[in-house]
């Protein structure tokens, strides 16, 4: 028999249904990744035991690790499925949904909490309008090089999944949002909301919930300097708190 690849995929028909595991054995192909394996299953939805099943529900879009859709747990690790090359993974390859977000179906979860957090911290530059107002503020290359990595965040939520503090008890916003606060507070126009952003991170679920486990920075597929962002913003939050206290 041709070389094959073995998968164990966690299935769950709906949020209220019981979870089960299904095994799949697929023909190995050069350059195969977890996504192409699931495409293969959709074209031939049969388990390793020969039992007909349904195609797997999962989020995906760009398949280039830039849209942030296909985050899942692969062999226990939160990562993007498109860049998970089968040849680099131990078999059977275990695939599960992210565990810290409400499950929708199979490997699909609801990560809208991150987008809500971005609203809370006003993660935007408040331009006057979109009509032509001439060029933007000058930005020196050194500053661009500091901001660009932060702007690469793909909202995959891997940093939140692996964070021990990201749970219902703490309501912690997570590293991704904190890094965006640093990005917009650095911007010459964006910084007009600096105080508001810092106050939004000062309360319940704010930056003080961080336990410095440093899992986030290891899990980030974009190598964003998350722990640096947390310490920088954390310092700013403390300063802001003192200012607010002194002002009464």
């Amino acid at each position, binding site marked *: 028999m041709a070389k094959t690849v073995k998968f164990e995929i966690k299935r769950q*028909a*709906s949020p209220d249904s019981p979870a089960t595991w299904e095994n799949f054995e697929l023909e190995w*192909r*050069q*350059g195969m*990744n977890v996504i*192409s394996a699931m*495409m293969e299953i*959709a*074209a*031939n*939805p049969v388990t390793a035991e020969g039992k*007909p*099943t*349904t*195609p797997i*529900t999962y*989020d995906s*879009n*760009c*398949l*280039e*690790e*830039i*849209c*942030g859709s296909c985050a899942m747990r692969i062999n226990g690790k939160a990562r993007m499925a*498109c*860049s998970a*090359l089968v040849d680099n993974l131990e078999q059977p390859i275990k695939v599960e949904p992210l565990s810290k977000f409400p499950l929708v*179906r*199979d490997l699909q979860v609801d990560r809208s909490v991150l*987008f809500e957090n*971005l*609203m809370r911290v*006003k*993660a*935007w*530059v*408040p*331009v006057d*309008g*979109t009509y*032509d*107002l*001439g*060029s*933007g*503020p*000058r*930005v*020196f*290359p050194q500053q*661009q090089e500091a*901001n*660009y990595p932060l*702007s*690469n965040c*793909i*909202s995959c939520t891997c940093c939140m999944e692996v964070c021990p503090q990201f749970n219902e008890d703490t309501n912690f916003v997570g590293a991704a949002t904190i890094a965006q606060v640093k990005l917009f507070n650095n911007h010459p*126009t964006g910084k007009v909301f600096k105080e508001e952003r810092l106050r939004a991170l000062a309360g319940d679920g704010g930056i003080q919930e961080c336990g410095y486990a440093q899992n986030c920075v290891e899990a980030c597929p974009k190598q964003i300097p998350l722990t640096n962002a947390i310490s920088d913003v954390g310092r700013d939050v403390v300063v802001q708190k003192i200012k607010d206290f002194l002002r009464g």
Partner: protein
Amino acid sequence: MAAPRIIVVGGGLAGLAAVIKIAEAGGHVDLFSIVPVKRSHSVCAQGGINAAKNLKGEGDTTDKHFDDTIYGGDFLANQTPVKAMCEAAPGIIDLLDRMGVPFNRTPEGLLDFRRFGGTLYHRTAFAGATTGQQLLYALDEQVRRHEVDGHVHKYEGWEFLSSIVDSKGSCRGIVAMDLRTMEVRAFQAEAVILATGGNGAIFGKSTNSVVCTGSAQSAVFQQGAYYANGEFIQVHPTSIPGEDKLRLMSESARGEGGRVWVPRTPGDKRPWKQIPESERFYFLEEWYPKYGNLVPRDVATRAIHKVVYENGLGIDGQPMVYLDLTHIDRETLNRKLEGILEIYEKFVGDDPREVPMKIFPGMHYTMGGLWVDNNQMTNIPGLFACGECEYQYHGANRLGANSPRQFIFGGFTAGPIAVKYAKNVGAAEGDGGTAAEIARQTEMNRQLLKNEGKENPFRLWRELGVTMTEHATVIRYNKGLKQADEKIVELLDRFQNVSLADRTQWANTSFAFTRQLYNMLELSRVIVQGALLRDESRGAHYKPDFPDRNDEKFLKTTKAAFTGAPEGPRFEYEDVDTQFIKPRPRRYDAAK
């Protein structure tokens, strides 16, 4: 009067640009997207965005940008909208800069520009090699701000099924499906803007994202909207072949000095490093000394095709050529191209700073699209289109880094015009056709769920992709195009026997996909038949049996109309607006 209600479908650059303009004008937007808008395909645009800012002392002007775009598109684009777009581009760059896009900078803190294909000027502003991602985020952030202010309501995780057309033929809203509950629901609006992107999925594997199926365009085409220049699709010269998709290797790799070559000896087995400079064939530089590696995409694609299939010089006899950056120092590469080099490293396993990349052309961009007038409106009043899903800015071939600019300009144009239209349109008669459209869509779903055939939709899709890639991409023959059309008819027939392995009504992705597949099949006939009828070679459309451009017969926009008849769409032709630049031969072996 209440604020006009406008629906925007699609949350990429064009859709979000339209949303922002409508919100600014005081309108209310319902924004529909299959994926959270921040995950739209625009994030994949890598290289940059063009505008003739002339910050490099080269004497660049918007007129030159206009000429490059028209010339690059082989004179098929209507010139009035293209001219307006080129003139608006510098202002759009400034706006994006003000919104916080982290564009690369010169030492003085000004915007930096790079060169791209089809021009001799440094005209492309860029943010590393992830410009599209950065542009989309900037617009996404502004939309989020309007969402907080209550001007925008997002319906993320909803799929557009059709437009609602009233008894007078005007668009009055849309029918969409919730991709979790599978509920089919009508949404009424005074105007609808489609910004639903390209149709790469019709070709099976492409550089496009999963959602780029062309399904929405096809649905409204089947409701009476014209589809224009469908036969013009762009095959990008440099993509990385993969099992699940073809990943784009940005043109910026060549813009920063990347060189394309193959060994001069067929089947040369030596590792690349042992092949001396004199035995390397830099075929783009030899064949096109003026533009070299930066010829436009259609020219580069055909050259690679030729060197592989006619000259038999593919690496190891495989359909691949080298794209070499190893002569450029690591520091420069990391600063300017890190994002794309990481993609290659991650998905192939080699470091392109040390080893030349192996690349091959792949389906990339849809020049054709819904026919629109100079106000971005389709022939269905009240239904607008902007972005890659419409046809009017690139003619027969798109130049690199011209698309992000077109998307934003198109959205900025469509938004305010839709607001104006919505304010004046007046109330619909009765329910405006809503109940009938809901009934039609519900019946289609019911039929699909009860089908008891043997066909798997994903396998039908693969067959479609293989046929389209073989017959309707780089080189086209009428015989092959006829075969492709016959194959599509066969697939449409077999579609009637599609059986869903999953009939549940919760987050059923294969059900949604099967609905898209039908629309892909209908649209693929527009592409294939349009190509069959166009007996000439122009831009990306190349027929060896008709190697020359034929302005007398084909300096015309193709317009396809849906008939529902077995022979497929009906075609008609419309004159191209060439009032500013007289068509002249297009060649890149010398300065134009």
